[in-house]
């Protein structure tokens, strides 16, 4: 057994004893911004890494809202007034639809790798 593998096993054991999920550390940390304007997402699809931050910026003079509703991940933001941000992080890889309860035609496909 190499020293690296031994160190990793020790870390996993310590993490388990302390209740820290060592293998579930976020692998991404970038920030991606999506603008909401003219009652649309200004992009229809985006690919991000697991753990990246997705930031929605309301550039409309209207209120918006953000939600995701899937079996393994659900998110409901509060109302998002003009010039305010909503931030969202996806915990697992997959393809998600981000939608707005107020504007049913708004739809953004997020691929999380």
């Amino acid at each position: 057994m190499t020293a690296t593998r031994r160190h990793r096993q020790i870390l996993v054991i310590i993490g388990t004893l302390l209740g820290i999920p060592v293998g579930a550390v976020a692998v991404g940390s970038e920030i991606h911004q999506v603008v909401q304007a003219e009652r649309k997402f200004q992009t229809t699809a985006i690919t991000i890494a697991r753990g990246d931050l997705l930031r929605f910026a309301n550039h409309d003079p209207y209120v918006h809202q953000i939600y995701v509703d899937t079996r393994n991940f659900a998110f409901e933001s509060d109302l998002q007034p003009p010039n305010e941000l909503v931030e969202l992080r996806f915990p697992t890889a997959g393809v998600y639809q981000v939608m707005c309860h107020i504007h049913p035609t708004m739809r953004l496909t997020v691929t999380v790798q």
Partner: protein
Amino acid sequence: MATPLFPACAALAALLSLVLGTTAMAGPYVAGNRSFPATPTTEDPFVADEFALSAKRTREASTPSSPTVRDTEIEAEIGKRLTQNLGLSFEGGYEIEDPVGRTNSYGFENFKATLKYQFFKNEAHESLATFGVKREFGGTGAARVDADTVGTTTPTFYFGKGFGDLGDRIAYLKPFAVTGVLGYQVADRRSTARPDLIIAGGSIQYSLRYLEGNVRYLGLPEFIERLTPLVEFSYSTPGTRSSGTTTTGVIAPGVIYSGNYFDIGLEALIPATRSAGTNVGFIANFHWRFDGILESVFFGDEP
């Protein structure tokens, strides 16, 4: 004898369902950026997966031959799409009649089923139209609450229209929307005592959510922003010669609170004709939209 029209339509619907398959589609209550709430009094023009529960309380004034009667009706309806635009719903109710100074009468109302097909939708003009056939199965309810032994079939036209396509000079009218129904109820055994009926109804509604989301952000509290004030009306009048059946009309002002997946409506029921009584009643309605949930459970999420 029951008309064979409804069983034929149900069989056709089942066949279409098998041929076309069930499709998971989002937002049957939606046309463009308009989300129509479910209205307590007027039947919706939507084909949807839905469950509705309503409670209605009215009071009929006394006449020389009968005392004042307090009437409570609890109704439930469940609807399921067979295809994206074709749906089948079932409806049943329980009624309690409480005549002052006399013994209560209670029992189930006649069982009903409706087949609907949405044949038109225009997203840009926030409009949609649906044709349906409602079948009331005579004799399935209790005679003691006046459930009719004669069944009826009602071909009905439903529509909905939002006014988001109005010009910006009258932008504050954009949150208005109307829905309506027009039907002709045919009795299985037509008589002067049980004539055919022309049934009409509609709603005029003003969505505060549409106002904040599409016209101008006013910073309303979220609870207020989710309200839709509305006025509904409902009329029926004999379409064939009748003895005793007259025009009945009700006007129902109220408000609907819309959650993300449900609507709760509350309305006063104001008699608009003499035969509708003289006292104001009320109706409360809970409507749950479960579109896509069953498909998600059985077939997984679709991106």
